[in-house]
């Protein structure tokens, strides 16, 4: 699906960033409002799919040189790792820790290990969705 439409490309760049930022927002909001790693991941993937639609696969791979299988695996490792923290602290698996911190610029923020776990989810979702789409789309 090659196209040379400059306007389309420019628009898609803009839309890509909008969706991407939105997805990050949704992802971060998860713990207190609707959202979370899963939806965030899916939205991010749709943003990348958009790029795929506009450019061909090779270009996108150059643009985002990511091995999605490894991304998936990293997500899993991160999720499992977070869940395992408790085990090393002598607590049951999946024990989460959180506290409130004062961060410059953002203000009082709750930092939660669940966030790390959700990041794992996010990575897996993005990784898998793009694996699927790439492999079907890349098949002749």
């Amino acid at each position: 699906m090659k196209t040379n439409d400059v306007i389309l490309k420019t628009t898609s760049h803009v839309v890509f960033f909008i969706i991407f930022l939105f997805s990050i927002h949704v992802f971060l909001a998860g713990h207190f409002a609707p959202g979370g790693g899963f939806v965030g991941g899916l939205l991010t993937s749709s943003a990348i799919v958009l790029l795929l639609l506009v450019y061909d696969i090779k270009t996108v791979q150059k643009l985002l040189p990511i091995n999605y299988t490894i991304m998936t695996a990293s997500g899993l490792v991160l999720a499992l790792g977070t869940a395992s923290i408790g085990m090393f602290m002598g607590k049951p698996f999946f024990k989460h820790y959180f506290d409130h911190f004062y961060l410059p610029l953002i203000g009082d923020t709750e930092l939660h290990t669940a966030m790390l776990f959700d990041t794992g989810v996010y990575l897996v979702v993005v990784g898998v969705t793009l694996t699927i789409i790439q492999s079907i789309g890349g098949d002749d």
Partner: protein
Amino acid sequence: MVQVLFIFIPIIAAIFIPVLFKKVRGIHTGWFVLIVPVVLAAIYASYISRVMHGEAIVSKVNWVPSLDISFISYIDGLSLLFSLLITGIGALVVLYSIFYLDRTREQLHNFYVYLLMFMSAMLGVVQSDHLISLYLFWELTSISSFLLIGYWYDRDRSRFGALKSMMITVFGGLMMLGGFILLSIMGGTYSIRELIAQAPTLATHDWFTLSLVLILLGAFTKSAQFPFYIWLPDAMEAPTPVSAYLHSATMVKAGIYLVARLTPIYASSETWVWLVMGVGLFTLFWGSFFAVKQTDLKGILAFSTVSQLGLIMSLLGAGAVAFHVDQAQDTVFKFAAFAAIFHLINHATFKGSLFMIAGIVDHETGTRDIRKLGGLMSLMPISFTVAAIGSFSMAGIPPFNGFLSKEMFLTSMLAIKDFNLFAMDTWGAIFPIVAWIASVFTFVYSFYFVFKTFTGKYKPELLPKKAHEAPIGMLISPIILASLVLIIFFIPNIIGDVFVKPAVLAIQPFLYDSVSAIPIHVSAWHGFNTELFMTIGIFVVGFLLFLTIPKWQKLYNIVPDWLSLNRLYDRFMTFLDKDLNFISKLYMTGSIRNYLVYMFSFIVVITISTLFVKDAFSFSMEGTAPIHVYEIILILVLIISTMTVLFSKSRLTAIIALGAVGYSVALFFVIFNAPDLALTQLVIETVSVALFLLAFYHLPKLSRHEERIRFRLNNFIISLGVGVMVTLVALSAQSQKLVPSITEYYKETVNTLAGGGNIVNVILVDYRGFDTLFEITVLSIAGMAILGMIQLRLSRKENEHENK
């Protein structure tokens, strides 16, 4: 302890056999093997002095003590007799086999391993006091018999015979196991001794008769009783030493042993008496009658064995009658059990020698077909003498041991007709008559066997080999056995006191206090009585029939072949091979639709019936949410888009309609306060639709298979059923919220303990984060699977390979 281990000596010895066979090629492996039965026979012989006075020697090794399963060797008169037969005949057979089987051409290591395995198994059967270990050894005899019959496994008949014998005997064994388990539950123990001790109480149990029948199935199949005998003639495909050993002297007597051993438990049952005696007698007749039909020497012997086993069996049945008679030791019934054991010994001697002769004839002439044989007497005088002794004994002619036991048999059968229990006074007369007829045929086939082979015209042109006498080594064993046939006739009471009476005590423990109390004296002459006249009648009629065999042998052709039991077995096996395949393919069609139809029908029927049988259907509007107009509209949207999916003719419409269903589901989530779900559903539906389109970009248009109305109607009915089922159960389940949900806890703790606000998300990452961890695992695997599917294409490779 040690005594149990003796049982395992042959098996342990078997481990070294392949090594000896490979390393010591100069010496026939059989010589090494021979040591085992000889040593064991000597060991068991040393028990005689203790056991003959009624002592029993027990030794135990635990196997699974926590389940009360152990090996118990219990040697009393009965066990010792059998152990001696097994090792004694075993030694002779091994000796014989050394000359019979060529050490360069045969797979001797296999042969002797099986044989030793069998020896252990058989010793185990006759010594086990524990039902489970008895069963264990019992099956091991079936297996070793299977391997021995199939020893020449490239012959079709061998494989056939091996399988047949295994199927029938293992069937019996399994049923017997069932009987054993029932018995052990009834008595609360697996020990036969302990069960015998509580025999009277066992007889009142509901399962008594069932267990009896099951156990008899085991005994009858093993001892080749009618109608299970059909495996035995086919087992003759085994090398002759095996036939002599397993299929006449020992293994087939395991059933006899079992019946004898369990007589004290079951004799009180009328069923037992009728079954054991009736089946035994009928088998006696049947086997003797059909023996004359056979043309294969070993075939004749096989049927003769069947018949003789029937005789012993019927004697045991008659022996059981003694349990129903007051003062039994003063009646004629006391003879039955004694005669059974006595005949068992006699049979082992004469039949063993006859089998060996049959093997010799085969070995030296190249055939066992009686039609080709004849006139061998002058060429093989020693063999002839041995054969004649064996046959005359079998026919019941003095001065051979068979005469003595045959007389006692007739005595017992005559007594039955006067016994006034179990309606014997009405039917009892049949017993002596059948016994007499069977004895006549026994006489006929005995003569048939020996004279058709050794007298008449010598037909060298029909024989594959030039006949001559066998080497002396091969003759030693049959000669020893034949001498025993003669010797026993002259010293029956020594044999009786040393071997038979201790065994009788084991069979009829309630009748006698000790071995010496058994008031039986065997004598060759006991006056002019009915038995004597019957015997004379047998000789006369038998001899006449023998002379006229060619005239009446045609009679056998009257019974059409397809009616025979063998045919039944063959039909059954073909049924398993062919017809089952046909039956199976009727429903295993490979069509997933058919499968789904079966499964859904079952699911719907069973669930809805349960719902109503269990009176579980209920319907209540209580506590349900109110209905709003927009909800109804949404429902309508859902239904309409679903209908569109159902009836669309183009794939694009179908996919988009499916998307519409998905979006309306998302809207439901919005309505029902599930924003997370709604958001997720929206995104996922979009991605899914994209995937659908992407994947089906390459696929053909929705094929317009003209589906028949009936096909659609079926589909409709089944799908309607599933829909109704889901709805009915849903209604019932939501009307019966019997326990409040655990959900409150999450509301209370989500902020304080979990540090979050969105309960759904916190459940996903915290309370039930474990689910989520594996949910993303599922996704990851799906990703890998898809990648693999797209990139790895072995079928393409296959095709390329084929095209080259």
